[in-house]
């Protein structure tokens, strides 16, 4: 392998003044035809291409990205990774993903800085606590690490948190998944791109898909801003833009695209040890390795493709954070931004075949799909390669919206970040 990354290659390249590093991925022109096209160069799309090549030996693959890879939600999320989901279907899928995370840096030979510092979901009402027990209990039975913490135990892990029982919505407890954590979002996209490129996948940027062609009910290729590209299989992983692509194929989707915002503080010396999420006061926070506090703001109620949301949402979230951490009131917000999240009615993804043969959709991850990146790519590659869902994603098909077999994660699991 050309340019394997390690401390040794770093030293070797330092000697030659870093002039000899090869490209992490090429920037090829599109070929006229591929065996499979992946629409969307986010983490999920790139992972799909990577696993298609690696696990299914399908290497004549193009990933078409309208902008720059990782510039969608992959590049703008708060990077929380956990698998403590309530419902079996979701738990198994996310746990598969978490297992892949645990070896991802080595697998990709790209340090995605996956930091298993634990994720805490706080409970502030009696019902929150019932839900926490319910979820933790389900997690344990599913073989997923999860514990319930008392306020004192929370304080022990996170010394500056406010556990006063006089608070407006006092912290009554939390669930805690020690294996959860955060990762370096950009590195995930880049690592998968580099990995896929190594297998010969073409990662093509600045190439927007503008149409999906089909003949006799089967997909034949896609129109793009760089011309028509033929392929018998097209996997769409376009997150916030899924409805548009469905529209190109004449399909309707149970998806709404909403602005979801996040913000960071200035970099600080380590002050937070874990990831803290609170549904009731609505805010979540972690600290990146670089030192900035990464705060998830809320979703706007309205549909929005603007990659920006309402300032009041930011205000509410910061208030929640200061409520939880009154010591952060002198910390400053550096930057805020937004993403376009594709929300499904049951807060669970769609990873599915479609009525069009050879056309597959992977979307609806909404506010919580970063953690699923490797797992989602893994099952989607399987689904595309075999033209049938893997057991792990069978429940996440489009049909559930007609039969009613929803996997209602907001029902009880609360925020799905």
């Amino acid at each position, binding site marked *: 392998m050309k340019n394997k990354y390690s401390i040794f290659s770093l030293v070797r390249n330092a000697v030659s003044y870093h002039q000899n590093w090869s490209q992490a991925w090429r920037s090829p022109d599109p070929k006229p035809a591929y065996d499979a096209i992946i629409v969307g160069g986010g983490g999920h799309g790139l992972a799909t291409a990577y696993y298609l090549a690696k696990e299914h030996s399908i290497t004549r693959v193009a990933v078409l990205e309208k902008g720059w890879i990782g510039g969608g939600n992959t590049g703008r999320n708060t990077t929380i990774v956990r698998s403590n989901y309530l419902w079996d279907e979701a738990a198994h899928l996310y746990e598969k993903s978490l297992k892949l995370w645990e070896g991802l840096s080595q697998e990709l030979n790209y340090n995605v800085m996956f930091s298993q510092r634990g994720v805490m979901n706080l409970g502030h009402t009696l019902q929150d606590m019932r839900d926490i027990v319910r979820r933790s209990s389900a997690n344990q039975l599913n073989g997923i690490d999860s514990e319930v913490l008392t306020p004192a135990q929370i304080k022990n892990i996170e010394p500056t948190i406010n556990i006063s029982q006089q608070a407006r919505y006092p912290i009554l407890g939390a669930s805690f998944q020690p294996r959860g954590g955060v990762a370096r979002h950009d590195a995930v996209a880049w690592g998968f791109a580099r990995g896929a490129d190594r297998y010969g996948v073409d990662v093509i940027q600045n190439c927007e898909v503008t149409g999906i062609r089909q003949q006799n009910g089967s997909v034949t290729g896609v129109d793009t801003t760089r011309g028509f590209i033929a392929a018998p299989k097209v996997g769409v992983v376009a997150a916030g833009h899924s409805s548009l692509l469905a529209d190109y194929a004449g399909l*309707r989707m149970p*998806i709404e695209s909403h602005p979801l915002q996040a913000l960071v503080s200035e970099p600080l010396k380590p002050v937070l040890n874990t990831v803290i999420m609170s549904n009731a006061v609505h805010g979540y926070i972690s600290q990146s390795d670089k030192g900035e506090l990464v705060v998830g703001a809320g979703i706007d*109620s309205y*549909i929005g*493709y603007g990659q920006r949301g309402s300032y009041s949402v930011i205000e509410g979230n910061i208030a929640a954070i200061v409520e939880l951490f009154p010591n952060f009131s002198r910390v400053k917000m550096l930057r805020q931004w937004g993403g376009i999240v594709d929300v499904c009615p049951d807060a669970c993804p769609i990873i599915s075949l479609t009525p069009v043969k050879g056309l597959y959709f992977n979307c609806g991850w909404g506010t919580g799909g970063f953690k699923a990146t490797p797992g989602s790519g893994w099952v989607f590659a399987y689904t595309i390669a075999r033209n049938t869902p893997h057991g792990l994603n069978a429940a996440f098909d489009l049909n559930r*919206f007609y039969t009613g077999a929803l996997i209602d994660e907001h029902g009880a699991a609360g925020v799905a970040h």
Partner: protein
Amino acid sequence: MLSIDCPWCGSRDQSEFSYGGEAHIVRPKEPEKLSDEDWGDYLFNRKNTKGRFEEQWCHTAGCRRWFNAVRDSQSYKIEAVYKIGEQSPDGIPE
């Protein structure tokens, strides 16, 4: 931060309103006669348009009236508001 023109109260801060999603989704007259697919389509499938989009808002903290707006979902600019039952400036909704 939107400022929304309530057809009755005029321009007010977004915080006074609640959102109702896509406008002109008519509840089927005889749901029992619908197939599961058609019912699922009514329940869940949405246009989710990028661009000019007809949607519902309610002036919850004001006059409590629901109304429709044509808003560009990318620029967030509200191009028109009209009352329930009135015709969209974009013509008859299908």
